[in-house]
């Protein structure tokens, strides 16, 4: 792939069409016109939280709208036992542990991947699971493990890495399966007795893979409108506008405000890839707890690519500290600045909780973009 130079002398004005200030003001105006009462809306995805904070979109919305930040940051919700397994596996002799960069700072019970790398472990940042397969090919005398985290978005590539390893007969490649799924988390949030979410912005990139056929039953069961929403300022505001209109009209439907990327069925071949390699399993979410059938584990036929079996890494004693309110933040019950540690003991360079680690984590987004208070 080549990134071409559009205008090398460029570009004081780098904003694309979906960031057009004039169009944004237009949608804001419509939201103000349509809203008549307070509504609480959750954006599921951490990428959306990040964009809202980055562009300060919450500063433009009417006071009636409360945006609640959902658990859609894979770094934040990857369970402590999986992080601890990752740390343990990375420290085994002759292991090259590969991971997306975000995971390096996530604290386990006792240390993070940065610490184990500083202590001599081979931890490498990759940008795609296929890079990990390549590293395995190039290092036949090492065991190469890929930390397969993410939502449905990363699952096809994670599945592909396993199929690729099988195709070329790699015996020194395995993954630590950690994918989590959005719809079960929505079920769990909506069925909580403490739930106060009245509308959802569904994560556009998850829907690009999975479609949105899973959402109408949720909208119907919990009587809640859901809008498939993208990530640019105009996309986000459009998603909010759709949701506000449905709320004001008393409709509990699923609408797609990200049609340029998302179809109802989603990416069929990606879904087939996922279904071939993975099966749904119960999974623990950090800060939330166990959610049934909310993760992808490897099918029986591919179990020999499961690093936790290869390295017998299950059963590690984990220990969370009682210092922050990450759990409540991830469920949208608390705002990051309501945590007493926020911005003082807990900062991106010394995170107490996972939401402070990733740029998609709600706490980090608040911290980075200076939102010490609402």
């Amino acid at each position, binding site marked *: 792939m080549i990134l071409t130079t*559009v205008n090398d002398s460029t570009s004081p004005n780098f904003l694309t069409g979906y960031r057009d200030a004039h169009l944004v003001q237009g949608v804001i105006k419509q939201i103000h016109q349509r809203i008549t009462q307070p509504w609480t809306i959750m954006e599921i995805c951490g990428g959306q939280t990040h964009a809202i904070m980055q562009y300060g*979109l919450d500063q433009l919305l009417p006071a009636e709208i409360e945006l609640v930040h959902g658990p859609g940051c894979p770094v934040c919700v990857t369970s402590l036992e999986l992080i601890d397994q990752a740390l343990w596996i990375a420290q085994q002799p002759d292991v090259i542990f590969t991971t997306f960069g*975000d995971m390096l700072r996530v604290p386990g019970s006792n240390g993070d991947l940065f610490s184990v790398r500083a202590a001599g472990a081979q931890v490498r940042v990759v940008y795609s699971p296929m890079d990990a397969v390549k590293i395995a090919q190039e290092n036949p005398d090492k065991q190469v493990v890929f930390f397969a985290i993410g939502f449905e978005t990363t699952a096809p590539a994670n599945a592909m890495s396993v199929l690729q390893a099988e195709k070329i007969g790699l015996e020194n490649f395995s993954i630590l399966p950690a994918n989590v799924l959005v719809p079960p988390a929505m079920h769990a949030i909506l069925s909580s007795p403490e739930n106060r979410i009245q509308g959802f912005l569904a994560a556009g990139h998850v829907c690009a893979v999975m479609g949105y056929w899973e959402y109408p039953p949720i909208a119907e069961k919990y009587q809640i409108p859901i809008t498939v929403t993208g990530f640019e300022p105009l996309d986000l505001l459009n998603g909010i506008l759709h949701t506000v209109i449905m709320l004001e009209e008393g409709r509990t439907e699923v609408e797609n405000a990200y049609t340029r990327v998302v179809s109802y069925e989603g990416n069929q071949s990606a879904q087939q890839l996922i279904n071939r390699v993975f099966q749904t399993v119960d999974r623990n979410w950090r800060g939330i707890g166990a959610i049934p059938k909310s993760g992808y584990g490897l099918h029986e036929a591919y179990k020999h690519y499961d690093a936790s079996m290869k390295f017998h890494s299950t059963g590690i004693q984990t220990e969370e*500290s*009682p210092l922050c309110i990450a759990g409540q933040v991830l469920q949208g019950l608390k705002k990051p600045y309501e945590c007493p540690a926020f911005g003082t003991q807990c900062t991106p360079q010394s995170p107490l909780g996972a939401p402070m680690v990733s740029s998609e984590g709600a706490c980090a987004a608040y911290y980075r973009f200076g939102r010490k208070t609402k």
Partner: protein
Amino acid sequence: MSQTDPIKPIQIQGPVCPLPHHHTETVVIGHGSGGQMTRDLIINIFQREIGNEFLAQGNDAALITFNEAPGRIAISTDSHVVSPLFYPGGNIGRLSVSGTVNDVAMLGAVPAYLTAGFIIEEGFSMDSLKQILISMAETCREAGVQIVAGDTKVVEKGSADGLFINTAGFGIIPEGRHVGGQYAQPGDVVIISGSIGDHGIAVLQARGELGFDSEIKSDVAPLNHMINDLLTAIPQVHVLRDPTRGGLATTLKEIACQSQVSIHLEEESIPVKQNVRTACEMLGFDPLYLANEGKVIVILPQEKADDAIQILKSSPYGVMSTRIGYVSQEDPGNVLLQTAFGTTRILDMLAGEILPRIC
């Protein structure tokens, strides 16, 4: 998930958070990022043991004085550990000369002499070494400086990554120039001498890990002539700083803290090349935090801003110079970015190492 599955409501587990990892026991890669962790390392370890009034100045170079001639001198040192050693637009040789020349120039000095120390891993290609030295010589000629002392150490295979170069440099500060991060004044204008993020992306891309190619080149260059022209015409310049590691945002935050002022930026006026922006979008980087090696931030009184931009633009390294913001006393120590939508966000220092987002 099918509708027949029993859905367990969420039970709050109670506060769940891991123990903090402050990385106080070992040095980790983030300590070298140029951001907050680097600052913590300097304050907690280096300043405590070897701190003095000169290091406490907190600028790119230290200002030292002699009672007799030559008066005021700027002195600076910088180690270069870039990986890979060669990348589009430059290499470690050009970087090691430019980096130190620029640091000395940022105090208003005219850089004159450098020293160079080489730590070479055994097995390093003699050809590559020659190429790097040719590049250093060319850059010295361009900058009008000479390397007057040197040192070479060879270490065992595995004890270094190919080649590390340390350079130190010094130069005399002409009378009438008083430039430093502590001198920003409310009412001043903030200028950047060109597009940001080129070096950061060029180096990352040269590592071959990004999965794409581009025409992005490092901006690495010695800026001393451009700066000397500027200061000769406008000695009233308050601050010069090159936004290297940590990028524009971290550097401005340092200046805001040093001068106890707030710096206000307009996002739309900050020049970012389209291909750099595209790469950042793909990787989840913010160009405001990417390294530059051939750019300077100029802060000076408003009435001198147009003249300054004109002078900068007459240098090949400053053709895209533009005004990006202003200084005020509203919110001391903070850098505030106004977005295209009229909203505001606070820019903090880079925390640790820049990490790509995953999705």
